[in-house]
């Protein structure tokens, strides 16, 4: 039986608190899109470290490949050619799990412990507890988790929880040739990001900024964008992501309300029976059909 190896902030499918007395350092991975050359080293390192291999596909008329996240590709580069006032810009965004502080996947997950959030901020899937319902996909504001056809488990970036647990940086951050991906404490990364934004502003990117969406209480993978006012131009990065209202109702208020209502109904019936008694055939009718008894 495996042991608890990290301290836990949240655990899916669990209504009681998880052991969370110890507070580890909050970590974060910063992706500086303005430094990204789209070389896909992160994709390669991710596959290599995690021992996943996607299928060898085909070219679809773009440089993106694999075309989308899969159970084997936990990160992909998304390329968009955008004409701005500065001329042509090639905006290349590394897509993958954002490790939200308030994870929609975890909220939606019904299986106890299939998704956990460690106190260092990593949101990790525990495939052995995963039941394959795919609710996390419904719950994720960034469309990240992917269900494997082979084993009906969902997979996504672990932020190399196995490496971080022993004090190392994630494989993608280590390998990134240009330093577009950096890793450290969330505080340090925020400081680094602010420096980058200042540099970008000095180079005329007046709307450069940090993408650390408040709708999910911030993320542990966050971006520096040259055009933070229009995240949508980065291959559809959502402008103000948050856990969908639907998901909040479904896995939030509705859960206790519905359970309570049903319980109330059951109790109501019981008390009705006790107070009013059963509805039996009347004496007159019994008399009329005495032969039946």
């Amino acid at each position, binding site marked *: 039986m495996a042991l608890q190896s990290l301290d836990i902030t949240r655990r899916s499918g669990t209504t009681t608190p998880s052991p969370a007395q110890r507070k580890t350092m909050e970590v974060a991975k910063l992706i500086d899109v303005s430094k990204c*050359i789209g070389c896909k080293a992160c994709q*390669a390192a991710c596959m290599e470290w995690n021992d996943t291999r996607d299928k060898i596909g085909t070219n679809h008329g773009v440089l993106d490949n694999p075309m989308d996240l899969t159970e084997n590709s936990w990160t992909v580069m998304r390329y968009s050619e955008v004409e701005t006032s500065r001329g042509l810009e090639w905006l290349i965004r590394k897509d993958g799990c954002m490790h939200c502080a308030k994870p929609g996947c975890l909220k939606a997950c019904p299986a106890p412990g299939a998704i956990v959030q460690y106190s260092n901020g990593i949101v990790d899937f525990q495939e052995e507890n995963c039941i394959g319902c795919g609710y996390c996909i419904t719950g994720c504001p960034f469309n990240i988790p992917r269900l494997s056809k082979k084993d009906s488990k969902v997979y996504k970036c672990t932020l190399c929880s196995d490496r971080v647990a022993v004090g190392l940086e994630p494989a993608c951050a280590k390998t990134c040739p240009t330093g577009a991906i950096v890793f450290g404490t969330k505080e340090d990364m925020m400081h680094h990001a602010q420096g980058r934004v200042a540099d970008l502003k000095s180079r005329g990117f007046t709307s450069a900024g940090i993408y650390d969406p408040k709708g999910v209480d911030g993320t542990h993978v966050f971006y520096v964008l040259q055009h933070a006012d229009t995240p949508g131009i980065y291959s559809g990065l959502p402008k103000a992501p948050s856990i969908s209202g639907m998901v909040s109702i479904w896995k939030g208020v509705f859960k206790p309300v519905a359970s309570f209502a049903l319980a109330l109904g059951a109790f109501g019936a019981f008390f009705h029976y006790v107070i009013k008694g059963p509805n039996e055939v009347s004496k007159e009718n019994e008399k009329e059909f005495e032969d039946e008894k």
Partner: protein
Amino acid sequence: MTNHWVDIKNADVIIVMGGNAAEAHPCGFKWVTEAKAHNSATFIVIDPRFTRSAAVADLYCPLRTGTDIAFLGGVINYLLAHNKIQLEYVKAYTNASFIVKDGYKFDSGLFSGYDDAKRSYDKSTWAYELGPDGYAKVDETMQHPRCVLQLLKKHYSRYTPEAVSNICGTPKDIFLKVCGHIATTSAPNRTLTFMYALGWTQHTVGSQMIRTAAMVQLLLGNVGMAGGGVNALRGHSNIQGLTDLGLLSNLLPGYMSLPSETETDYKKYIAARAFKPLRPGQMSFWQNYEKFHVSLMKSWFGDAATKENNWCFDWLPKLDKVYDVLQAFELMHQGKLNGYFCQGFNPLASIPNKAKLIDGLSKLKYLVIIDPLATETSCFWEDHGEYNNVDPSKIQTEVFRLPSTCFAEENGSLTNSGRWMQWHYQGAPPPGDAKPDAQIMAGIFLKLRDLYRKEGGAFPDPILNITWGYRIPHAPSPEELAMEYNGKALADLADPTDKPKIIKKKGQQLDTFLQLRDDGSTSCGCWIFAGAWTEKGNMMARRDNSDPSGLGITLKWAFTWPANRHILYNRASCDPSGKPWDPNRKVIYWDGSKWTGADVPDFKPDIAPGNQMGPFIMQPEGVGRLFALDKMAEGPFPEHYEPFETPIDTNPLHPAVINNPAARVFKDDRGDFGTSKDFPYAATSYRVAEHFHFWTKHTRISSILQPQQFVEIGEELAKEKGIKAGDMVKVWSKRGFIKAVAVVTKRFKPLQVNGKTVHHVGIPIHWGFKGIAKNGYLANTLTPFVGDANTQTPEFKSFLVNIEKA
């Protein structure tokens, strides 16, 4: 590289041109992003295509493929016209003030001395005017009409911004913006670095493109400076080392050269290479040529090399011409080559005009492949349908395929672009029966030597006498070989300045090439590598990465040739009085008694400032050459010539001389060149970030990341041709066709050139008919069989194609 990878972080302006470092050298490219982030550097990409390097550039500047000389010539014109040169540097450290011989001329595209029949120049007028003392004449005022600066001004005055824009298709305002950025580095405390690769070399004027950049750097005073220089980003992990070791038709190790058949006299052979100073007080380091040469011959032939037999001079083959790879395949094509070896080289994919190559290989009697992978060349005789349509039963070539180890399975050193020789170690045994290259060479050689011993035969002497003292003769160890090329004392060596003192005992490893002798008392397999394995052990395996100056100079990491020097010509980083031009980049300095500093001085350590010795110690005149003398095949000043397949059918500068008059071109191949009438689009071939040449199509991860062959075209051309992204298209040149998926992009824009709209077609090279990625066509089906005049490098970067939906 004159400088090295980490040094790029010191630059103020970085230009990637004739290369695409972000894709081909991503980890070296990090020093560009570092310079941007920590040195406020401006980063400019000049390329026909908006590359992944351009994705992070401050300024992207388009130009038509093959027009880099026009562009950089325009830059030279701009710098001279706006007086944005580092005048003091130019005066003291270049040949700007030297007076050129009367008779030198440039007219309508040709320099003086051209011989149309031979397609080459008589270069006798491309020389300095010498004084009675044998030294070159100079005019310190640089006003003499025949001084280099004035000739330079005159030559490039034609390269106006309008002319540049007309030839290159670069919008004039962007060109001027680039010039403005470049001009800022004429200040002594600002540097520019050029990063280039095969985007410059693979043209019929490739060497001259590089020279033009070097001239710009000399004018700006950026050579020898930290964050400056002209930096070749070599393509393969040890192509630097293999070049250093001289594995080329006409070279010997350490940039020494083989004698030609007219040089059968040993003394004359040496004299022609041991350049005497052209100015007083110059080091002219090649004066030591004989020491290096004799030590090499002692290393190869041991006791058989004696003073009496001129150190086996006769045993060296003599050249009648250069047998570069284009020449070799031409001979093959003519049926004049019987045997061919390919060691870790896949020429069927790497040499132009695949049809000609298949024809040549089919005429061989035997072909020996030494490779870790199943290459296309080894399988040239296999029928792979549309990708390789041949009939094996008609191919009579015997083919041997010998499995070699890969990097992970052997010890040894590789030399990177920055000339760092780094040692690596075996991590696992090779698969199956694979052997290291050295053992395969030993295996073949020992059998051959046995046969000559037993049977005799044609001139067996060099084969029988080659030194082979390896502990296990059939398995020479990398360590033994490294010690051999480093060199050792064959007798006790006395200190030349302090005679009785012995600096090296017989048998000891040498510390530096300065210890080499021309009397046969030292051996050294490659003089520039001396110092790599000394009595202290393997210097290439050193792992102290400390960088005391903060300039990225890590002298205790591995071994950097020459003499562990990181920045070449670093004497030029100080002014003539010995003070660094920029106090913040103190690479070396004069401390009152000697040269010292963060780097190993590229200078005689005890020559005080004010002495006449110039910083370019390899040159007989001690200064950098704006005027190349007779060193280049097509002229002392780079001139814009069109690619052999040009989309505009003319040269706007001189319509009578369209392309390089001295380029490597064979008669038969001229018929295979297309014109813009049938092939209207300018094509260029290149690598992409996900793949390495033709290797990674054999590896799963790389094949996943970019699985299938594609070509890139701009949206405008796609619209014209009715091609949508993802369509299969056929691209063909006069030499053949390929089919690939179309990537339609905004990153290729049509250019207005000489009154004509020119579209580019981009052709990544990585696919073939062997591998685990999707099979594809070898891109060299399309490319023309024509090469640079100096290096014979094929023109892969500029040719003509047509395209349509398949």
